[in-house]
């Protein structure tokens, strides 16, 4: 938009907002035609609920709790995923032998693991962590392997002819070369992790009768089944969306900083 | 040598093209006041250093771009847009990757204007004829990614001819090929163009190339362009006898013509590659 004047830029923003604003207005209009006791969510009520939830701090604490789990689970999965990915990328033997197992688990969704996780770990944070870690693991692994495979083999060979040790080659040649793919993998993984934590908390909340697991997903379930408040649910949905966006933007920023040479 | 009484097949009058850079708002003059008459059945080559606007001119003749000033007329009518009467062969062939050889050659016939008056059988016959003509019989069902560069070029040529255009516009069609394939295809091109046929049966062709020897081999006239802005420096008439394939390169006039054209371009070519112009001066040859 750099070559537009102020008027054109305003018009561009206008076009961006037309549809969402129109839809929200239509939504509000529809809601106002309903009888006053109706539980249906309405934009104005949603805003009001947002204010309530923020003032009691419950929204913030739930978000932080969910994020904490995501970060922890994601970190565990990334460490394992990158390490394993590097090994698999570097060694045909390792890759050959692990590939069948990994490819078999890939179509098994994180949520499918949930009942087992509940059996093993109960209905609290460990289960949620397990699901998040499982979900984050595959994007990181697969992209790391892909990244390593795209490293120019000639660079590796050239390094070996210079007498550089294998460990140094791994950290100084392979890792930087694979970094763009690895960072892409972590960004995807973080997105998946966020979705997974919400799903896990939702499901655990549903199975454990609304007790003790905390987090946004849990909060949503409570507002669905116990303190029925659809407006609060919408608030939670919006929070889920906003956090997802923020996470993605953050990771893109990190990507740019770490890989200034990429377009 | 050109007779002005029959009206030219193609006429460029004061054709100018300038480009406006979207970010900076600066305008670059790509082609300046180019005027040229091309007769029916002529083979014209356009040569010049990089950036002299050769492709821009071709695009304008094809109707894919519009002159900023001046007019291009074909058969006395102004050119307003692309059409099957001016067929183009692009530098990178522009073959549809999802079509086989047969599908590509027949693309214009089946979906565009060239084949409108034909029925299905006639179209298929025509397609088969041109596939045969370029020597690709047997490869009809291959996809472009399965073909070599030379084969792809022949598909593009077959497609061009199958559409039966009045004027052939060829933008460095042989540029991406290795030298030997190029030699073969130059001869093919002359044959297909109708070198051995009488002038009235030849198609009008405009051929862009970097290769001066190629230009002298193929053309009736060579339009030498200069750069910054692009304009016609000189039009060199190639008075070598036809048919040329196989014989022209050893004709005494061949080397003279090539050297003459090169002398027109040399300075600018050196400048284009950021070189030292003093190197452009011819060195003294030691004799005896």
């Amino acid at each position, binding site marked *: 938009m750099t070559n537009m004047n102020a008027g054109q830029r305003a018009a561009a923003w206008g076009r961006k907002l037309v549809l969402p604003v129109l839809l929200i207005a239509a939504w509000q209009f529809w809601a106002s035609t309903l009888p006053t006791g109706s539980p249906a969510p309405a934009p104005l009520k949603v805003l009001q609920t947002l204010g309530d939830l923020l003032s009691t701090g419950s929204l913030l604490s739930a978000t932080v709790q969910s994020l904490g789990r995501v970060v922890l689970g994601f970190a565990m999965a990334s460490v394992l995923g990158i390490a394993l990915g590097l090994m698999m990328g*570097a060694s045909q033997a390792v890759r050959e032998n692990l590939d069948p197992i990994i490819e078999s688990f890939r179509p098994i969704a994180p949520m499918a693991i949930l009942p087992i996780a509940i059996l093993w770990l109960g209905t609290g944070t460990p289960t949620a962590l397990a699901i998040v870690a499982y979900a984050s693991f595959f994007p990181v692994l697969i992209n790391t392997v892909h990244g390593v495979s795209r490293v120019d083999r000639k660079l590796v060979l050239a390094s070996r002819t210079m007498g550089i040790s294998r460990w140094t080659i791994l950290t100084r040649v392979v890792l930087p070369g694979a970094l763009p793919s690895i960072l892409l993998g972590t960004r995807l993984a973080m997105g998946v992790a966020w979705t997974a934590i919400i799903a896990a908390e939702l499901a655990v909340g549903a199975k454990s009768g609304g007790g003790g697991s905390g987090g946004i997903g849990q909060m949503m379930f409570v507002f669905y089944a116990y303190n029925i408040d659809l407006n609060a649910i919408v608030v939670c949905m919006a929070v889920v969306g906003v956090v997802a966006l923020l996470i993605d933007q953050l990771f893109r920023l990190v990507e740019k900083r770490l890989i200034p040479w990429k377009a | 040598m050109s007779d002005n009484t029959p009206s030219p097949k193609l006429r460029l009058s004061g054709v100018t093209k300038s480009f406006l850079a979207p970010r900076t708002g600066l305008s670059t003059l790509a082609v300046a006041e180019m005027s040229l008459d091309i007769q029916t059945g002529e083979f014209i080559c356009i040569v010049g250093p990089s950036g002299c606007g050769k492709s821009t001119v071709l695009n304008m003749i094809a109707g894919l771009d519009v002159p900023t000033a001046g007019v291009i007329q074909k058969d006395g009518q102004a050119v307003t847009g692309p059409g099957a009467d001016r067929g183009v062969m692009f530098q990178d062939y522009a073959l549809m990757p999802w079509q086989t050889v047969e599908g590509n050659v027949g693309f214009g016939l089946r979906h565009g204007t060239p084949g409108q008056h034909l029925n299905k059988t006639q179209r298929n016959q025509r397609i088969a004829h041109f596939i045969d003509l370029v020597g690709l019989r047997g490869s009809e069902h291959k996809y472009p990614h399965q073909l070599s560069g030379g084969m792809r070029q022949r598909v593009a040529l077959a497609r061009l001819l199958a559409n039966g255009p009045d004027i052939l516009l060829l933008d460095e069609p042989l540029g991406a090929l290795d030298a030997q394939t190029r030699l073969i295809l130059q001869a093919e091109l002359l044959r297909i163009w109708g070198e051995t046929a009488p002038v009235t049966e030849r198609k009008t062709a405009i051929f862009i190339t970097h290769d001066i020897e190629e230009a002298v081999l193929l053309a009736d006239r060579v339009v030498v362009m200069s750069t910054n802005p692009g304009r016609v420096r000189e039009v060199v008439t190639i008075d070598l006898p036809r048919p040329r394939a196989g014989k022209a390169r050893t004709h005494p006039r061949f080397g003279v013509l090539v050297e003459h054209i090169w002398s027109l371009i040399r300075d600018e070519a050196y400048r284009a590659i950021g070189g030292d112009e003093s190197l452009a001066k011819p060195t003294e040859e030691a004799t005896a």
Partner: protein
Amino acid sequence: MGMAMTTSAGSPVLRSYRTLWVSLRSFAVFFALWWLLHWWNGNPLQLPSPLKVFEALWGLLREGEIAEHASVSTLRMLLALSLSILVAVPLGFWMGLSRLAEEFIDPLVEMLRPISGIAWLPLALFIFGVGDTLPVFIMFYVGFFPILLNTVAGVRQTDARLLAAARTMGIGRWPLLVHVLVPSALPTVMVGIRLAFAASWAAIVAAELIGSPTGLGFAIEWYRQMLMTPKVFAFILAIGVVGYVCDLGLRSLQRRLTPWADGTGASS
């Protein structure tokens, strides 16, 4: 770093035998480790032995229960995917071709996209209740975005030269769309469909786990509550296998529809 210079046996037949052998070997090791873990763990409810799981799997297959749930889930998936395609592809073409349409619609898309399908579950449960519609809605939503985004991308990356070439053959506006734009965008659209499938198949488990009385997702939760762990494992296996088979199907469809692309969405 041995970017292994070892070459596998030359001919393709020999190589696929070798791959099979390696796979079998890996699985054997995997099951052996599983069994060891089971033996060490000592609690058959938590980690049943592989043998028990296969026994349960066999039983379920024979009784047709797996087929029953699998077909329910698969049908829902197909329905949702078809709906996603029907809505997202035309919309994607429109947005790809018209900058104006994109300017208006894209902000809404980008606002909804971060809200994962799962986050819609409570609201959707309220609207649709437990049953068939819920999983289909969630899957439709989840599948919609990858297909839309990929369609727009597919249209945008159409080689302008191909369009120019077609115009020099006298091809008009509508034939240009149908005969050049659509085939050119198709490989990328197919990639989007495969992505949509993977995301939807993951979402269906969550949706059925919470909000459906039938289907594979429901089954794994049902048997967990009954503490019949071998059957839980069996159904999880079924989820994986059906997902894999469907993806194979999509890949073969991809090869049929876009034989010129190499399967990663890139055309020659």
